[in-house]
């Protein structure tokens, strides 16, 4: 068994170097396709992270009666925060609300309207961030039932729009990723098949001198794995070489990184190596099969 594996590995290694043009072509194709796939995967991951970030921005806002005491407000905050659907509750006082209004006008470059207001017309409010923006209904009901709450902003429309957009983007991302995956599959299997076809004569001779199917198949399968491994290695080297400048670019661009580079490094490595080796093996297996089935 060990001898067999040793033999197959040795032959695979030989085969790889004997036919350098083919091997380089196959490995090059592998690298480009893995770059494509991992590029899309990274974009897709970033997109999902970004969408979650957007979804977290959906808040239920409840205006409070101006007569609510600080103590009762604090109790209300605690009660609301205890609800299972709620992630976080922030209390905004009347003064803070006015200051925010002032700041918002200023940020838009508009004139400050507060001098024209006789008194502070704004209410104190609770800003409730949900664990899942789809579950706003129950929270809404509970808040409406509170005696101190005079009004809960209706976010039905906003939530629906955000959720439609994010789910659309998620679907589109997944669809594109699957399509790219299929392209990668086809191209790599195809390339390896062409490389195997070029060695049909060798397989023919092996059959005729009495080599068993395993002895014919496994060297090719290992050679495919080798192409996958080399391809994956080069791809990862390129990706990590490019990750630093790319991360900086993305940071400049979005002002915030949707994900930490280190956190996806492991996933990307697994994806690239797994896909590379897997497709290399699959491609060889399928290609050699054609010649054995006779």
């Amino acid at each position, binding site marked *: 068994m060990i*001898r*067999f594996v*040793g*033999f197959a590995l040795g*032959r695979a290694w030989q085969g790889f170097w*004997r*036919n350098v043009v083919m091997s380089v072509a196959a490995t090059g194709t592998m690298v480009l396709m893995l770059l494509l796939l991992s590029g899309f995967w990274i974009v897709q991951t970033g997109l999902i992270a970004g969408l979650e970030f957007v979804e977290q921005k959906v808040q239920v806002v409840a205006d409070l009666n101006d007569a609510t005491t600080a103590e009762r407000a604090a109790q209300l905050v605690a009660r609301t925060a205890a609800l299972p659907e709620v992630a976080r509750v922030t209390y905004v006082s009347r003064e803070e609300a006015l200051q925010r209004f002032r700041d918002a006008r200023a940020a838009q470059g508009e004139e400050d309207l507060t001098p024209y207001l006789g008194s502070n017309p704004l209410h104190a409010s609770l800003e409730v961030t949900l664990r899942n923006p789809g579950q706003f209904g129950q929270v809404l009901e509970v808040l409406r039932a509170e005696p101190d709450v005079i009004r809960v902003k209706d976010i039905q429309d906003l939530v629906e729009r955000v959720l439609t957009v994010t789910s659309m983007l998620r679907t589109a991302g997944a669809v594109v990723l699957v399509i790219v995956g299929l392209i990668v599959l086809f191209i790599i299997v195809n390339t390896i098949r062409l490389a195997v076809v070029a060695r049909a*004569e*060798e397989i*023919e*001779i*092996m*059959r*005729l*001198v*009495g*080599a*068993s*199917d395993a*002895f*014919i198949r496994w060297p090719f399968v290992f050679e495919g794995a080798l192409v996958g491994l080399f391809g994956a290695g080069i791809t990862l080297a390129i990706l990590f070489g490019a990750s630093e400048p790319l991360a900086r670019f993305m940071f400049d661009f979005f002002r915030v990184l949707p994900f930490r580079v280190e956190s996806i490094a492991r996933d990307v490595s697994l994806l690239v190596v797994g896909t590379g080796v897997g497709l290399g093996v699959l491609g060889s297996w399928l290609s050699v099969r054609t010649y054995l089935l006779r």
Partner: protein
Amino acid sequence: MRGLLTGRAGARVRRPPDNTVLVLRDVTKEYANGKQALRDVDLVIPEGDFVFLVGPSGAGKSTLMKLIIRDELASHGEVFLDGEDLARVPRRQVPRIRRKIGTVFQDFKLLPSKTVRENVAFALEVTGTPRRQVGPAVDRVLALVGLSAQASQTPAQLSGGERQRTAIARALVHDPRIIIADEPTGNLDPLISWEIIQLLLRINELGVTVLMATHDADVVTALRKRVVALEDGRVIRDEVGGAYHRED
């Protein structure tokens, strides 16, 4: 001889003479295009025989050999190799059968990217021979066919005769039970032809059955071995001690 080739000690005990290596019973081979290359062929080759297969071009000699290595299946009739009905041998067992046969193909079938040594070693390696046995076995057969000096040349760097000898070396290296040679001296000069024949005779004397298709009338007539003549797919003559041409 078998021991000599693989480095194993002791010659193999000869089986009783009624032991047959190859039996063809009423074999007909019709190709997909309707060509009948063999018709109603009956042939029994006992172990240790040396058989010349003669006949004009297109008579069916190579077809018969393809049936023996199960590269083709008979359309009708049965082919037994070493007691096994080839039509009944499951596909997985075919390699095992082929390893009992040393085949010299008419068109050499050498790998152009491999050296002579590698081409010969190839046949051992791909059938799972331990690495340390491969080297000595290859060296021995290369010396036997006189190619030690060309061991590291590729087929493109060989003369036609040298290629033929490489193919013969590959067939021998496997220490086969029967050697099937399809015109092994076709491109050789008379001297080397005779050397190859002597080699096959020596191997035969050590108990390996030899079936050799040839057009070389001198050799066949001189050796007076068993001659099977095909014509148009039929066996028209099968005599022990025969000549290349009919003698009556």
